[in-house]
């Protein structure tokens, strides 16, 4: 029953990781810092930028714009007088960024741009036709040059390179947490199996152990994100910005300041270390004891694990909640929601069950798990089905109450997402709810590998987008893009994660030898 990772599996997983890495490198250099354009009339466009840009960069951008506008001679006037345009600026602000939460971010950006309020530059662009008889568009209907220019700039065709590489850091957080969550979900489920003394799943326990062995990957990536964030290398967490919580600063944010009792760097680090250390030590301990049980037999180790599992669940129930506040809710610092922890938790649990299902199906198809019967697969399938409902239920509970109450400080979270992430926001809900409901309802589909793989993959990606949705609207606002960077980093993580899991599984016998409920699990059938 020993399993050795096959060459093919090794090549596939590492191949995916390498392709991902290549895509990631290409994508890395395509990160944009958007410039905003507003049409004033058919011959005039206002271009505004809130970040930092030197004179050279500005000139370069002007040239790029000129080169892309064939047939027009562009005239750039700088109207960068901030006081003059401050009233206008707020109109613009509310147009692009719909919440005061974002204003804080915008101000923060502005601050880093040059230590003053308002945009770095505002250009009034006059569009003059170069040639007479400009009917080269043909026909009566043609877009004015101003429309073309506005569209081009707002869609990000012309933009600065994002010097803060926000997309990279945000994606690192998304993927780091998503794959950390899968490992954590597996650990949680293993503890649940021990604490409830479940018999059916004993033949699968080594798979959970294998999956949770990949926990250090996600952990170390998250640590990198936190460390860089603490030194203000990126601004995923606005409350880490010392200016926002400094009453003497221009960009002081009283709401965030009011939360500094909880959201401050030392306490954050204490919490993060407490989470990671707890999870890591429990995971190591469970693995050690399970190996020890293989050698010793008897029920002594089992009862030890049983008690320790209950203890872990205690820690986990608190930490999973506070961790979701620290990692995701604090991105939208002004916003808070008590249900959030559960919502994140249901997501990681479900992703973990999908991963368990995939690994089990793979190993079974290779003939490595003769003890795993259709009934076990069916039961894991039921978990996928049930947890999809748990997730949808929590998603909807969170959404509906906020939507219904319509309190401005709460709705900002959803307004951002619905305005700028419409397809993703509704799409993740529909996919993660409707697909499992329609296709995993019947008992037959929960036993069919084909259905499980297809539906599992779809909702797996759906839940990745769910995490994406939690992070991006708070870090990239309306400047999000989905491209090589996102796909590449996901593939890189996926490949490395699956490879680590398979390698960890190959290090121990595939089924525990002396688990007291092993016999029950072998005969699990319904």
């Amino acid at each position, binding site marked *: 029953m020993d399993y050795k990772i096959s060459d093919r599996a090794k090549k596939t997983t590492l191949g995916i990781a390498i392709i991902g890495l290549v895509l990631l490198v290409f994508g890395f250099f395509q990160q944009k810092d958007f410039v905003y354009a507003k049409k004033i009339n058919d011959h005039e466009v206002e271009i505004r930028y809130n970040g930092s840009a030197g004179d050279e960069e500005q000139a370069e951008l002007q040239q790029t714009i000129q080169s892309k506008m064939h047939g027009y001679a562009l005239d750039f006037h700088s109207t960068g007088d901030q006081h003059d345009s401050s009233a206008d600026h707020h109109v613009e602000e509310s147009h692009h960024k719909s919440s005061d939460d974002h204003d804080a971010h915008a101000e923060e950006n502005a601050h880093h741009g040059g230590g003053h309020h308002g945009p770095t530059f505002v250009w009034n662009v006059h569009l003059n036709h170069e040639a007479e008889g400009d009917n080269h568009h043909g026909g009566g209907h043609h877009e004015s040059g101003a429309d073309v220019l506005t569209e081009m700039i707002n869609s990000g065709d012309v933009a600065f390179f994002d010097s803060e590489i926000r997309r990279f850091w945000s994606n690192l957080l998304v993927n780091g947490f998503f794959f950390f969550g899968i490992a954590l979900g597996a650990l949680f489920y293993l503890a649940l199996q021990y604490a409830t003394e479940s018999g059916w799943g004993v033949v699968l326990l080594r798979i959970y152990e294998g999956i949770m062995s990949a926990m250090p990957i996600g952990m170390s990536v998250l640590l990198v994100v936190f460390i860089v964030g603490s030194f203000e290398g990126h601004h995923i967490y606005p409350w880490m910005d010392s200016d926002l919580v400094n009453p003497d600063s221009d960009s002081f944010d009283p709401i965030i300041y009011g939360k500094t009792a909880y959201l401050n760097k030392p306490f954050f680090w204490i919490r993060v270390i407490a989470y990671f250390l707890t999870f890591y030590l429990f995971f190591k301990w469970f693995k050690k004891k399970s190996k020890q049980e293989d050698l010793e037999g008897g029920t002594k180790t089992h009862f030890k694990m049983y008690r320790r599992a209950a203890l872990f669940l205690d820690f986990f129930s608190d930490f999973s909640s506070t961790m979701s506040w620290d990692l995701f809710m604090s991105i939208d610092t002004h916003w808070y929601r008590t249900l959030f922890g559960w919502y994140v938790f249901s997501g990681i649990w479900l992703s973990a069950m999908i991963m368990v299902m995939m690994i089990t199906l793979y190993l079974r198809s290779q003939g490595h798990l003769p003890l795993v019967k259709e009934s076990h697969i069916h039961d894991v399938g039921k978990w996928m089905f049930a947890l999809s409902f748990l997730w949808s239920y929590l998603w909807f509970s969170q*959404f*509906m109450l906020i939507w219904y109450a319509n309190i401005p400080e709460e709705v900002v979270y959803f307004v951002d997402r619905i305005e700028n992430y419409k397809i993703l926001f509704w799409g993740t809900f529909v996919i993660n709810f409707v697909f499992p409901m329609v296709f995993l309802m019947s008992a037959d589909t929960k036993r069919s590998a084909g259905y499980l793989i297809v539906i599992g993959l779809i909702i797996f990606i759906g839940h990745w987008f769910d995490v994406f949705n939690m992070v991006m609207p708070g870090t990239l606002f309306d400047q999000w893009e989905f491209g090589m960077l996102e796909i590449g980093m996901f593939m890189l993580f996926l490949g490395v994660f699956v490879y680590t899991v398979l390698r960890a599984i190959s290090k121990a016998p595939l089924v525990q030898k002396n688990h007291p409920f092993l016999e029950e699990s072998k005969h699990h059938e319904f």
Partner: protein
Amino acid sequence: MSDKIIYAMYDDDDHLLNGAKDLVAKGVHVTDVYSPMPIHGIDPIIGVQPTRLGIAAFLYGITGTMLAALGIRFMMIVDWPMNIGGKPSFSLLENIPSFVPIFFEFTVLCAAHGMAITYLIRNKTLPGMPPRNPDPRTTDDKFVMEIRTSENSKFSDEELTKLVKNTAFIEIEEKQI
């Protein structure tokens, strides 16, 4: 046509399950089994068709959803338009998140009641109906298998009784109708 019913009683569901397996393997048709609790795996052995209660439940449920939608549309949108959470859009679609709990509750209500009533009617166990189980002990801790001679014409009565007696029964009762 005269019909004889053989009731074989067991005191363990495993004994009944193995007995039924034995009999069916020999070509006996088992009409029914009376049991205080569901016996896993008995259905395919005695040839009970998979239940269609699930399909009925779906139909009742969708009826409930429709009724809820119609009712809410009439009450909250058409007859007496309501301002919901400061969103006076007076449209079913735009206010749908606030109606989802009602859709859900009404769907569950209709599906649950429909299923329960269908189940009782189909099993002829509506309150007040005469009991069909041959022995009240089948509602406690005994299991009874029912075999009819009319459905097993290839065996004589004696042969059938003998076959049943080969299983791990505790009592056999024969009833002539």
